[in-house]
């Protein structure tokens, strides 16, 4: 009996001890995720306290608005304006603008009822319907603009008969209208049976609905989804409801039937509206005389359809120009030949798709020939009869040899207006090493007011077989004000000659280093045009002295040799733009890594080469080493860095204030004071900060750094991270002028409402983009969120990347200029703009760890150029690295990219952070730090790194011994602190501010559970031991 009692006591002790252990680990896990838990519960683990000694109000960046409502109204108005100017008119035979007083309109297309406003993931449009915030469809907007709609067909679309055809992506266990992609973060590719177009077949339409549509203007709504973590598969498919299509970007059978019904049941006016950020195949619509007009709306966010409706009704004259080439066949770009899933040919088990994520790759054989740079360059060579340009290779829509008019529907930069403009290129100043500009006179020769975009392109002299050069490249642009009929305006387009230069990997400079930006001797042409094609035609007309063999693809194209200027450069220049420049990305070029494989890239020298998909690459031993992440290791070296001093300096001391406490900036980055400040930080603090530096940055008490917040964008702070304007505020901050309390009427309104980046790009309006950056800055001030992951600056390498909606364009220069504008706007309000994803994040399929091989010239002239402007100018304060590898090395740990180019060449002084870590070892913090990469967006990078658990004394000892590592760590920390000091995260911080650790209720609860289970465990163990001893004595 006594033995049984002892057993009970023993068992009880085991259960309680186990619960105690479990509660300890639960508390530990909860601490790791405290940021998320706090965000979810609306609690905080820190608060700031002031002693009252300081007289400063601590407001260094001020809002231009008095109330949150004003901010929200300004954003809505700007969203409308962006869409007004970002909507592109492709075709118009006079059907547009609609006459709101006389045109009754039938909306054709089930997708019009639930359009795609933004991405399913990434640039997701979110509003709080419960709080009265709403999204606006084109139907709503047309009604608001006074257009009479045919309700019969809308009634049919609203009926349950249509339910089976509606697009509804399953996401987070819920059906999301207006989407059809299925995102997957694990190795994936969009599968054939999962994609819905979302339109019913012809027999869905009742005779009553068709009859009601007669004598009305048909507005056909075509839509395609976009999402992060998903790509379109290039294949013929049948959707689950029986619709089928040759390719996802081509019109489906049901869409074709829809258009035929619209044509047959209308007043003869058929207007097609395209709600898609991926370029669709619309050549047949362009060539169909029964289609009156085509309008591209893109994914315009919560309110942008108002701007589209303004264009359709003529309230605003369209002035948008498309930021991607619309090809006849969406797979015809050379990049599409090596897009998708490619697996290394390695022995079984050699490569690990789990931790290393090292099994897959893509080879960007197109080099610099992305988007229009391919189509237009091949066009010039076809006209000039060189390089087998008119041959069969790469033919997709042409009959016989390659033919531009068959392959391209709408060229990059094209867009129509309701009026006509005459542009005259008056002069071009091309100054190598100086400021360059073009002067253009624009006259509205039509009958209605409107804005005109001046696009300036350049052509550098191409030497057959030499460095690859695009026949035409955008170097700058400007937009006029609204010009009345007959009015003129002279605009100046400033540009930088360095962006006309080409990167020559073989050039050897005077200092003996290899790799340089070159400007060859020869004739340079600068031209304007309504898109890249018209500009190139102007160049060719100038070059050839005739437009006889030149091809027009749109009826309003004008070929004018006078709109092209030739400037001759006498001597080749390889030094002016090459200071500190040398090859940094040679390990990304598969031709150099595996010369024996003989991989061919696209080249002007012979357009027949480089078209083959490159399958089954067998990695060399050196490549394998990097694919196994054996990049850097911790060693014992040098003298230790100084940490943990107490010299009294705090971050607030780095701010420069005048006598009245007004903010003047911060101490310069190269000032030794920063080193003095950093000496106060302990090594443990530095490690803890950097391992989670990206989401909510951990506070550093030794220098008075509070929690710094950063969240995803880029169309506004995402609602799953910043669910409301009030979520980030604590009561202790209620004195700040932009504080939003929970009782504010608009406190729970959500922020990601702006149009997606392709729509923004189509405005070709830097003022609007800068204003958008400013309003993101206002959101930052009013939501107490200090950094946004955006803008997205990757280029649209391939149409089938369904994340193109998060990036501006296929053109890196357009991206560059808009990136600068957006970041300048945010910076002016103290918002830390954090462009992403640096670099080469060109597909979502297997994005984690994809080894991306590219020529250094290709990388620098396409992708990197898009980032260069805002990072080189330090308009961006952060930059997020990409998931993929560059060559075989993780992009976030590529020293050539991050230190060689970003820091040393560009002089970037902001911080660097990884993208979200997904438990994979290839994104480890050890390599990230050694490469100059900085912090980790999520702590998993640290946990998954070989350094391991920061709480392990052994691992900290490794870091303590490695001075080189510590130096990198300290330097990265300096960049972070310098950036914070220049941002609005310092708002509210004064010399008497102290960061105080507090325990939110959930922490207290967990702590209580720890104590209770701990005490019970001790009691139970004691009871058991005493009983056991007592029993022994009796025996």
């Amino acid at each position: 009996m006594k033995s049984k009692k002892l057993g009970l006591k023993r068992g009880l002790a085991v259960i309680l001890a186990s619960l105690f252990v479990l509660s300890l680990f639960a508390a530990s896990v909860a601490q790791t995720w405290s940021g998320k838990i706090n965000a979810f519960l609306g609690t905080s683990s820190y608060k700031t306290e002031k002693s009252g000694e300081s007289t400063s109000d601590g407001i260094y960046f001020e809002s231009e608005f008095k109330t949150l409502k004003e901010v929200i109204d300004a954003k809505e108005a700007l969203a409308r304006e962006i869409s007004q100017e970002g909507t592109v008119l492709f075709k118009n035979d006079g059907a547009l603008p609609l006459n709101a007083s006389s045109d009754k309109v039938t909306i054709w297309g089930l997708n019009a009822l639930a359009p795609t406003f933004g991405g399913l993931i990434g640039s997701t449009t979110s509003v709080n319907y419960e709080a009265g915030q709403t999204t606006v469809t084109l139907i709503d907007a047309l009604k608001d603009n006074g257009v009479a709609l045919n309700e019969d067909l809308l009634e049919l679309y609203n009926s349950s008969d249509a339910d089976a055809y509606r697009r509804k992506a399953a996401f987070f266990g819920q059906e999301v209208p207006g989407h059809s992609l299925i995102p997957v973060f694990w190795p994936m590719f969009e599968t054939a049976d999962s994609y819905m177009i979302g339109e019913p077949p012809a027999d869905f339409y009742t005779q009553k609905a068709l009859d009601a549509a007669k004598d009305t203007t048909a507005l056909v709504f075509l839509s395609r989804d976009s999402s992060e973590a998903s790509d379109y598969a290039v294949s013929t498919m049948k959707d689950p409801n029986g619709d089928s299509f040759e390719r996802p970007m081509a019109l489906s059978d049901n869409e074709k039937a829809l258009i035929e019904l619209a044509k047959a049941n209308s007043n003869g006016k058929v207007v097609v509206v395209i709600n898609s950020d991926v370029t669709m195949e619309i050549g047949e619509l362009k060539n169909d005389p029964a289609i009156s007009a085509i309008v591209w709306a893109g994914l315009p966010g919560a309110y942008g359809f108002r701007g589209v409706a303004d264009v359709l009704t003529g309230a605003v004259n369209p002035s948008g120009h498309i930021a991607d080439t619309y090809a006849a066949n969406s797979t015809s770009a050379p990049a599409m030949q090596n897009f998708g899933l490619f697996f290394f040919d390695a022995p079984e088990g050699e490569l690990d798709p789990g931790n290393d994520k090292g099994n897959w790759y893509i080879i960007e054989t197109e080099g610099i020939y992305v988007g229009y740079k391919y189509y237009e360059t091949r066009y010039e060579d076809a006209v000039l009869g060189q390089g087998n340009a008119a041959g069969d290779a790469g033919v997709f829509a042409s009959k016989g040899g390659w033919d531009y008019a068959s392959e391209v529907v709408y060229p990059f930069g094209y867009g129509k207006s309701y009026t006509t403009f005459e542009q005259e290129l008056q002069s071009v100043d091309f100054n190598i090493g100086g400021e360059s500009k073009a002067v253009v006179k624009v006259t509205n020769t039509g009958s209605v007011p409107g804005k005109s975009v001046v696009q300036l392109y350049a052509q550098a002299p191409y030497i057959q077989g030499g460095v690859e050069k695009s026949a035409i490249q955008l170097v700058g642009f400007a937009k006029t004000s609204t010009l009345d009929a007959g009015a003129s305006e002279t605009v100046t387009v400033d540009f930088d000659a360095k962006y006309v230069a080409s990167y020559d990997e073989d050039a050897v400079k005077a200092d003996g280093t290899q790799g340089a930006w070159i400007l060859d001797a020869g004739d340079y042409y600068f031209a304007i045009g309504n898109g890249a094609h018209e500009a190139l035609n102007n160049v060719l007309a100038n070059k050839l002295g005739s437009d006889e063999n030149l091809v027009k693809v749109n009826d309003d194209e004008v070929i004018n040799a006078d709109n092209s200027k030739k400037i001759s450069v006498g001597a080749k220049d390889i030094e002016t733009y090459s200071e500190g420049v040398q090859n940094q990305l040679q390990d990304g070029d598969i031709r150099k890594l595996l010369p024996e494989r003989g991989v061919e890239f696209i080249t002007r020298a012979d357009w027949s080469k480089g078209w083959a998909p490159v399958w089954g690459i067998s990695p060399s031993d050196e490549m394998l080493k990097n694919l196994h992440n054996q990049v850097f290791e911790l060693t014992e070296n040098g003298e230790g860095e100084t940490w943990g001093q107490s010299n009294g300096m705090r971050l607030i001391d780095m701010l420069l204030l005048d006598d009245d406490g007004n903010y003047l900036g911060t101490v310069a980055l190269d000032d030794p004071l920063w080193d003095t400040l950093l000496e106060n930080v302990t090594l443990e603090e530095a490690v803890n900060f950097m391992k989670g530096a990206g989401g909510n940055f951990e506070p550093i008490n030794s220098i008075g750094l509070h929690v710094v917040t950063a969240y995803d964008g880029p169309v506004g702070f995402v609602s799953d991270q910043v669910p409301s304007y009030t979520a980030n505020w604590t009561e202790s901050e209620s004195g700040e002028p932009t504080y939003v309390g929970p009782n504010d009427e608009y406190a729970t309104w959500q922020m990601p409402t702006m149009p997606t980046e392709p729509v923004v790009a189509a405005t070709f309006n830097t003022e609007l983009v800068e204003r958008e950056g400013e309003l993101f800055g206002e959101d930052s001030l009013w939501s107490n969120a200090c950094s946004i992951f955006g803008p997205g600056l990757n280029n649209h390498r391939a149409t089938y990347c369904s994340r193109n909606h998060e990036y501006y364009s296929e053109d890196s220069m357009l991206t560059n200029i808009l990136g600068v504008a957006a970041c300048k706007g945010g910076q002016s309000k103290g918002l830390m703009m954090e462009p992403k994803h640096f670099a080469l994040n060109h597909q979502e399929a297997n994005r984690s760890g994809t080894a991306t091989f590219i020529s250094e010239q290709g990388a620098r002239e396409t992708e990197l150029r898009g980032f260069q402007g805002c990072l080189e100018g330090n308009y961006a304060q952060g930059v997020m690295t990409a998931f993929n590898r560059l060559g075989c090395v993780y992009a976030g740990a590529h020293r050539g990219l991050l230190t060689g180019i970003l820091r040393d060449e560009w002089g970037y002084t902001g911080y660097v952070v990884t993208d979200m870590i997904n438990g994979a070892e290839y994104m480890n913090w050890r390599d990230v730090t050694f490469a100059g990469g900085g912090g980790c967006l999520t702590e998993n990078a640290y946990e998954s790194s070989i350094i391991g658990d920061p709480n392990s004394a052994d691992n900290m000892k490794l870091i303590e011994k490695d001075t080189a590592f510590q130096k990198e760590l300290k330097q990265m920390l300096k960049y972070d602190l310098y950036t914070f000091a220049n941002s609005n995260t310092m708002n509210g911080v004064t010399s008497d501010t102290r960061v105080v650790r507090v325990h939110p209720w959930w922490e207290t609860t967990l702590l209580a559970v720890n104590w209770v289970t701990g005490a019970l465990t001790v009691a139970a163990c004691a009871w058991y031991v005493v009983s056991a001893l007592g029993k022994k004595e009796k025996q």
Partner: protein
Amino acid sequence: MKNNKITLGFVLTAVSTVLAIVCAFLYKSVVQQTSTTYTLLIFAAIAGAAALILAFVLGKEIPNLFLIAHAVLLMAVIGVSIAPVVNDMGLVFAGLYQMDIINAYITFAIFACIAWLVSVVASFLGVTKKEA
């Protein structure tokens, strides 16, 4: 076994010890690993084995102390191993990851939980039994 018969507690301790060793092998397939988990599993197995061996050598209560350590270490295994999987679990539940990424962990965790439960029952019974 000194003055003792083979008892149910002894058998269950043996089972949970074997399960701890099985867990160590299963853990090799888990994507989200920590070396601490291996260490704890080894110590748990050693504690279980020590309880069994000492039951032969010493009998009475001392082997049961190792049984307690065995059970608590198994719980620690569960606690330590779950931390790196939380993120991926969230993504799977959100429908963003396929189950593949946590399948191995779930199998491991089921075995670890069974091992712990068995060890708890064993601790009630004791690894030794005094002769009547």
